[in-house]
């Protein structure tokens, strides 16, 4: 479980996140939704410690991450897997080397054991026979899958996904969403996903938090978001509603 308590963040005196709190539960997917520039990425970067918050605290299963020193944070980070918006795969390494990287860095596994683990992770994300290819030789959707495989290679307790569907076609987006949902449930991971894709919200959102101008504007579930009486939330999901009705009519 991840508990975010009253965190605020400003850049050059400008408040970009104000008194933000929520709880992400284990084995469930918490979605942070909102328009571009409203603070989703800053929030996620703050939770994982890539940005220092001005005030507030972040708890990983009761452990106060905000008060930890570098060494203590390092131990928490080994329990974190993260899928970045642009996948963030290492260009100079093959798919296999990318997934193997955390294992080589932090475990004493033999090469054979590491290969076995890598193949298991790649198979889990339905990406086989790409071990020796470089990130530049695979598609955007495949890069995301390698990113997920790398994120789960160390059996993380917490999974963060920043815009996992950006730049992907609807079908590939659906595959990635399903993968995140399955992995979260299968391994009992606490997953937080940043997205502005309403399809993702409807498909994988156990809990949905709407962020607006750096503040928590609305909290609910994928079932209740379509009935939300909040003006900004209604505007945000409006288009999705239309699409869903069109889909219903056509089917």
């Amino acid at each position, binding site marked *: 479980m991840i508990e975010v308590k009253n965190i605020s963040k400003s850049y050059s005196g400008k408040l970009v996140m104000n008194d933000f709190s929520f709880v992400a539960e284990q084995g469930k997917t918490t979605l942070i939704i909102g328009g571009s520039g409203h603070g989703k990425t800053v929030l996620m*970067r703050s939770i994982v410690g*890539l940005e220092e918050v001005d005030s507030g605290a972040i708890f990983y299963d009761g452990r106060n991450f905000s008060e930890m020193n570098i060494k203590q944070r390092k131990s928490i*980070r080994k329990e974190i897997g993260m899928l*970045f918006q*642009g996948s*963030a795969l290492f260009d100079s390494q093959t798919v296999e080397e990318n997934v193997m*990287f955390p294992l080589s*860095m932090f475990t004493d596994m033999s090469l054979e054991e590491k290969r076995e683990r890598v193949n298991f992770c790649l198979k889990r994300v339905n990406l086989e026979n790409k071990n020796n290819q470089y990130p530049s030789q695979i598609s955007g959707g495949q890069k995301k899958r390698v990113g997920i495989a790398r994120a789960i290679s160390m059996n993380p307790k917490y999974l963060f996904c920043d815009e996992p569907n950006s730049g992907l076609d609807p079908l590939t987006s659906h595959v990635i969403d399903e993968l995140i949902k399955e992995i979260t449930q299968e391994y009992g991971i606490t997953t937080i996903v940043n997205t502005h894709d309403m399809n993702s919200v409807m498909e994988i959102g156990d809990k949905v938090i709407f962020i607006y101008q750096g503040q928590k504007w609305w909290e609910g579930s994928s079932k209740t978001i379509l009935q939300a009486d909040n003006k900004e939330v209604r505007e945000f999901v409006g288009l999705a509603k239309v699409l869903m009705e069109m889909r219903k009519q056509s089917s």
Partner: protein
Amino acid sequence: MIHFISTIFFHIGRYFTLITRAFSKPEKTIIFRKRVFEEIENLGIDSIPLVLIISLFMGAVITIQAAFGFESPWIPAYAVGMTTRDSVILEFAPTLVSLILAGKVGSSIASETGTMRVTEQIDALEIMGVNSASHLILPKIVASMFINPFLIIISMFTGIVGGYIFGVLTNVVTAPQYLYGIQYDFRIYNVTYALIKTVVFAFIISSVPAYHGYYTHGGALEVGKSSTTAVVYSSLLILLFNFILTQLLLA
């Protein structure tokens, strides 16, 4: 003016903070050693052809210029060889070749590190709990400080050989005169002085571009700007330290 001075102090402070982080104990010695060897190949071995070409012509030009300037019956003909040797060893090989390497290697380091920053690869390392500064920068510094003295020794040798070949071919000096000149009053301390300079320049060539790349923000345009800035500052620092070290070691 105050802003300019505060900016300089900001960069100096941030540079030394990064270097301190980079010099912390590597996560795994075996991976560090592998990375050092990779960097020796990238930064050193791959630069050998460039060093050979530059040094060959550098030696040739110095020999011809020296012969042109020494057209006096009071100056012995072997002085051409002696001048070529001392010019190449004292200044041209360590300083000129380091300046050229600052362009080639420096821009490569800055653009590689900068691209890793803007594509979130450095964030990915941090999330995994890897000290990105140590993992990315330390192998480059160690590799440069190790391989650059060898490059400079190659440059010294090639420069003197270039002077011999072109000097004899253009009839500005005879082979025995040149060979006598390069052996006359040879001081081994000059080579020591040149190698000390080289090690300091190697540190500048690797650390300054790494600093500029590491703190790149934005996209491809900013990576290009970082690369240019890195080469300019590395070159200026090489010239500054060339003066300081010459004063300290030769005066």
